[in-house]
């Protein structure tokens, strides 16, 4: 990625993604230390919000069987955020849409669910059905909260902020392609980032230079279903339970924080063929691949 042989990269695996931290400082003990701070934060967030862990906050919520759950400040803040995203996206961004996973499996096969299956699962989707009075959450039985659409971006932003509390060294934190820099590299230089999109056999690479802020990329050309010549993308509209038509192959968005970039790129994908228009109207720097 970045050119310098001077920068050591701190790599690790978290949130089912390859992660890396680069610190532009010749003091490599500091760089390793900052990498560890980012790694610790990634793991903390992963453990706390993982669907797969018995001890996570998300599991506690999802097994509450309709009973009120009192949440800590961080989770409450994230739910407030989810609530705001739901409102400003008119319901397109919905953290209760995870149950669609039960009927949609995007493995390239032709296993498209039936209309009835979709209809049966729709009652269990909808943030408006959740009672959220901070700090108490009441999630109706059989509904689920899933921070999957926010978790990685939140981890990137949290890691960068934690690093900035202890060091002025310019850093780049990249968790599985969602990345943010704390500022330009020394000498006011920009970080160089390569964006790869894989489409079957071919790999195309774009190069971006970033001095401030975050970049996220939504879309995965490999996740789809194909039936009767119709390609069903994995971008599901939580209001209908069906995939969005004609979404871009990928959308890369630049924004001041990783969370903003992530929400906007998700919303752009959900606009289907109107993705570019949406991004242009929002005045967001973006790159769309169709």
């Amino acid at each position, binding site marked *: 990625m970045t050119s310098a042989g*001077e920068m*050591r990269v701190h790599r690790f695996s978290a949130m089912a993604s390859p992660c890396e931290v680069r610190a532009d400082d*010749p*003091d*490599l*003990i*500091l760089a*390793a*230390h900052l990498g560890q701070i980012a790694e610790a934060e990634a793991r903390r967030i992963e453990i706390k919000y993982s669907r797969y862990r018995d001890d996570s906050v998300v599991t506690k919520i999802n097994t509450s069987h309709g009973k009120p759950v009192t949440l800590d*400040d*961080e989770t*409450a*803040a*994230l739910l*407030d*955020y989810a609530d*705001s*995203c739901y409102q*400003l*996206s008119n319901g397109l961004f919905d953290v209760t849409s995870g149950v669609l996973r039960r009927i949609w499996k995007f493995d390239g096969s032709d296993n498209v669910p039936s209309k009835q299956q979709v209809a049966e699962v729709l009652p269990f989707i909808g943030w408006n059905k959740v009672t959220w009075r901070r700090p108490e959450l009441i999630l109706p039985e059989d509904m689920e909260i899933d921070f999957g659409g926010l978790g990685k971006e939140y981890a990137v*932003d*949290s890691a960068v*902020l*934690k690093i900035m*509390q*202890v*060091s*002025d060294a310019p850093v780049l934190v990249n968790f599985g392609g969602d990345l943010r820099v704390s500022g330009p590299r020394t000498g006011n230089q920009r970080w160089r980032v390569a964006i790869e999109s894989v489409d079957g056999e071919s790999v195309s690479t774009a190069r971006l230079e970033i001095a401030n802020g975050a970049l996220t990329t939504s879309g995965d050309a490999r996740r789809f279903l194909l039936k009767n010549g119709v390609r069903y993308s994995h971008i599901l509209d939580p209001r209908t339970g069906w995939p969005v038509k004609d979404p871009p192959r990928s959308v890369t968005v630049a*924004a*001041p*924080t990783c*969370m*903003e970039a992530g*929400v*906007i790129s998700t*919303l752009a994908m959900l606009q289907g063929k109107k993705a570019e228009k949406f991004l242009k*109207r*929002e*005045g*967001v720097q973006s790159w769309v691949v169709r």
Partner: protein
Amino acid sequence: MQLRKRKKGQVRRTLGLVTANLFVATGAYAQTAPAPQPPASQVGDSSGSVLDDTTSDLSTTVLDSSILFYQEKGGRVQAIEPVARLKITGFTGDSLSLKATYDSLTGATPNGATPWKDPQTFTVPATPPGEEASVTGASGNTQIITIPGTGTQVAQYTIAPDRLPVDSGFKDRRYALDMSYGRQLSTDTRLTFGLDGSFERDYRSYSTNVSLAQDFNDHNTTLSVGVNYEYDQSKPHFGTPTPLTEMNGLPKGPNDNKSVLSFVAGITQVMNRRWLLELNYSVGFNKGYQTDPYKIISVVDSVTGGPVKYLYEGRPRSRTRQSVYLANKIAIGPTVTDLSGRYYHDSWGIDSITGEVSEYVPITSRIYVEPQFRYYHQTAANFFNYYLLDGQTLPDFASADSRLGRFSAKTFGLKLGFKISSDGEFYIQAQDYKQSGAATVPGAPGYLATANLFAGVHAQSVMAGFTYTFR
């Protein structure tokens, strides 16, 4: 489906606000004072103050070079000292430092005798013909004479009346090599190992040291301990005189040596963003020959104060030294203030205090000045005397070396630095050092009551140097 016309960028703006709120709520913006990186404490570093920033950047090579010109007033010692140091740091933080020093001293140095109203002649063993004349103690005004009735040659030099006797034609050359290896055992632990050697014709010193530094509290606290062992060989050109025997031109005894074992323990603490504090305690034990073989002490008449004979000085063979050192580095705006003090006490009866302040003042982004002031005061060693009285019992130890006497000293200095880049700097530093002390002692007999017995150094020096970091 849009039910209402959205303003341009509305989602983005609202999202921006909401995201900012999120991080305020989760406390991610909490202003904890960022911890600056304190310098790693290298206790065994021979370059001097432990406050020197010895944390070189990783994967760098630093070259330091300087030359010092030193001159004492009154025709005393003059010295030139070039120094070069190379420090290589690997990407793990391990480092190797090599330093080479060359010293060339000439001039005159007091020999320990008191002045007198008549000329005084001092006899020292002669330099055998064919040997180099650059030997400490060989005088420029010496005459080689042969003692009648024997084949022995001796050297003699004469000092004018009313002058503090000095041994002029003093010449010395010294080479020193210092090596230090530092190893980062972990992010928080550093082990340093050093070897040093100093070589003069008539004196050799070898030492080795090991120290361990451990960081705590996110590198805000560093504890360090170190041990140093030194072995010195004294090989005066004409042999080692027996202490408190009469000065003469005969060859003397065999070489002698001493060893020193010392320990130091210290703590460096980042007090806050702008203040770094260091405190350390050190103790050293010297055993062996610590006398200056070239220094004498006058035995004077208890009425006139005139010299009766001259004896070689003698100092105890053991010495325990302790010191406590406190240093502060304080950043105030763009300037940095260094404020330090040391208290020293040893078993020879010398107590001393040192206070030093210097202020680093950047003038432009490239130029800085650093004025400095240092004050020093010491009490005399308990066997120090300007003279001995004829007829009194000889003490076990006696020395008239003014470096063991009671005096105070003030140093005024000014350093000017010019940064050629973020990696390199030239500097020039000038200092004026002046000792002051009592000219005579109460009860001094005859002539000595009004003479000036205090050797008192007043020296000026200029040092020019540069430092450059290769990455």
